[in-house]
């Protein structure tokens, strides 16, 4: 549907000051005030730098967002994707009026509601029922509106039995169920959702996602969904905006946006050329990780086999074999895999390791490379040589947003004895 524009962001930027607020910030405030009184530009605005948290900056001021422009049509489901710290949350805060942009403006048509958190304003001493009213009102609902939907909300939450018990007695699962139930029944033309909303156990998550899907597609409302979970984004949204270091780097169809996000990433590049991992015995050239060599999709799915291709030069006959250590996101070693079965040859080698389908659990993994000599000594060690993200293919369908426990998920044979 070619809808009319219901949300338009023009040149919005947001500057933050780093460090502590103290008496030095008072002098900056006075300086700013003095400039503004004389009709000059705020001197602090000029010295802001782009926000790249990994690099040490020269200025105390950073642009968390810089000159963002976009339009959203009525009925669009738009994903805002970016890495941690890219500026997604800042954009959300601006859109939901929690804080003000430093420059620029956002025009909105219709009611806008944002869910940055579930259960905002829940009071532990109040009963579930009282909290439904309170939370609903905080989110912008009228009391009559809540009353009308009360039964639906309670029913959706599945905590009917505890509805007149103070929420401090609730399990954390019950708490988020109730909170999400309120949020899910918000009626506004534009809905901004943060991904943290997908909460609770598997059964409830299905319900949440189903509800979000219904809101987005069924009711034809405009939805902005913020996430760095590509699977969820792909299943829920049609369009996407990619934000990197506070700037919009891509806007378009969701498939393209996800591809853009995955390929640009330094955190998870699936192809990497090397010129710095080398010594007298060994030169590493390239590592590629993929499901299928012809695949242009920058996604690794758990439901297909994963191939790790390593290209390197062996310079001396010292080199015995190479070993990868695989670490999970928290840095714990999971297992190691080595080329003990293959005889490496002098000169160029290209070897592939095939990991069966459904072996890796969805998540991020790190590889460290060890080159081992024929006398079983490590001649070259390169830590975290590759990082890759495995995506749950079933989750991609929107069936489930959670994660099974553990790092590996081998599919074993089961049969009756």
């Amino acid at each position, binding site marked *: 549907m070619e809808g009319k524009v219901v949300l338009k962001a023009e040149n919005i930027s947001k500057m933050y000051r780093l460090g502590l607020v103290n008496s030095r910030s008072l002098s900056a405030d006075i300086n700013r005030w003095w400039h503004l009184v004389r009709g000059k530009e705020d001197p602090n605005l000029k010295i802001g730098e782009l926000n790249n948290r990994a690099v040490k900056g020269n200025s105390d001021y950073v642009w968390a967002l810089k000159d963002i422009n976009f339009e959203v049509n009525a009925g669009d489901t738009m994903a805002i994707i970016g890495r941690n710290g890219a500026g997604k949350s800042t954009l959300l805060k601006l859109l939901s009026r929690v804080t003000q942009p430093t420059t620029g403006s956002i025009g909105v048509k219709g009611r806008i509601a944002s869910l940055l958190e579930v259960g905002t304003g829940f009071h532990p001493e109040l009963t579930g029922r009282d909290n439904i009213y309170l939370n609903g*009102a905080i989110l912008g609902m009228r009391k009559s509106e809540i009353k009308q939907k009360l039964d639906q909300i309670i029913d959706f939450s599945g905590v009917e039995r505890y509805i007149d018990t103070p929420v401090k007695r609730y399990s954390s699962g019950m708490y988020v169920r109730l909170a999400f139930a309120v949020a899910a029944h918000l009626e506004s033309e534009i809905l901004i959702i943060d991904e943290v909303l997908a909460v609770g156990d598997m059964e409830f998550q299905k319900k949440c996602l189903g509800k979000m899907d219904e809101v987005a597609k069924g009711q034809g409302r405009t939805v902005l969904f913020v996430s760095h979970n590509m699977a969820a984004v792909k299943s829920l949204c049609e369009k996407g905006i990619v934000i990197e270091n506070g700037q919009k780097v891509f806007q378009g169809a969701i498939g393209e946006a996800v591809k853009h996000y995955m390929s640009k990433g330094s955190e998870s590049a699936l192809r990497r050329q090397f010129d710095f991992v080398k010594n007298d015995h060994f030169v590493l050239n390239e590592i590629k990780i993929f499901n299928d060599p012809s695949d242009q999709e920058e996604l690794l799915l758990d439901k297909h086999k994963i191939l790790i291709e390593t290209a390197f030069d062996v310079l001396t006959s010292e080199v015995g074999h190479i070993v990868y250590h695989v670490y999970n996101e928290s840095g714990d070693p999971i297992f190691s895999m080595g080329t003990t079965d293959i005889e490496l040859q002098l000169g160029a080698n290209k070897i592939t390791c095939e990991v069966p389908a459904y072996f890796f659990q969805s998540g991020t993994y790190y590889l460290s490379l060890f080159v081992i000599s024929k006398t079983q000594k490590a001649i070259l060690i390169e830590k975290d040589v590759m990082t890759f993200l495995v995506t749950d293919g079933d989750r991609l369908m929107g069936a489930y947003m959670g994660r099974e426990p553990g790092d590996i998920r081998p599919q074993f044979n089961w049969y009756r004895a």
Partner: protein
Amino acid sequence: MKKWDLEITSKTFWWKWNLQEVWRYRDLLLLLVMRDYKASFRQTILGPIWFFIQPIFTTIVYTFVFNRVAKLGTDDQPPALFYLSGVILWNYFSTSLTSTSNAFIQNASIFGKVYFPRLIIPVSIVLSNLMKFSVQLAFFLCMLVYYANFTSYTTHLSWHIALVPLLVLNMALLGLGAGMIISSFTTKYRDLAYLVTFGVQLLMYATPVVYPLSMVKGKLLSIILLNPMTGIVEGFRYGFLGTGSFEWGMLAYSFSFAAVMLVIAISLFNRVEKSFMDTV
């Protein structure tokens, strides 16, 4: 240029109060007051009785310290009635002021996640306290009836009782205004928050709470009269106890003071609410 229903800009206009939006959120206001009431006495045995206990004990202590020991007069009124009236009025003003002055900091977690007119919070605080005040006022009236019927005390009620709602409103606006001004300043620099806690205590002595205005003479009197709470406390006592002084001028002064302060407060508050999350 299209017309938007809502425009989020980098500019703040101090004259844009968005009162119609506050009105749209009136249900939230009501629910917040209800929340405060319901939550304050959960898991207490005495429940709302706690509303009375504090003024009773304060009155007893004041009677002992200021009346018996310091021999301050009470305009020939029973000390219990004299102090109780002062205590409940001052309590309302001071709790409104101190809790409003924490409005931004206390609610930062909510304000950081969802938008609603921030003005709702201070108004809800003042209304919650009003509820508490009404209960204490009822208690004061019971005491008055008791004294009139069971002691030799004769009442001197005057028609000025009719002005009590006005006095209470005036007091609410004073507490709201002062609290909001302070809360606007404390989001970035916490210095004022320290001042408030003991400043309010000291201010009580600049208000005829523990002494009658008739005892104050000379230069000191003009200072005490500058305090907008003076007219309110005196007017209240004049209505119920028939002592103290009542002048329309004092009432008008208190009201204008509250009105001016409120205008400043709302303008400041509106300015700060837009970006306080960045500095709180």
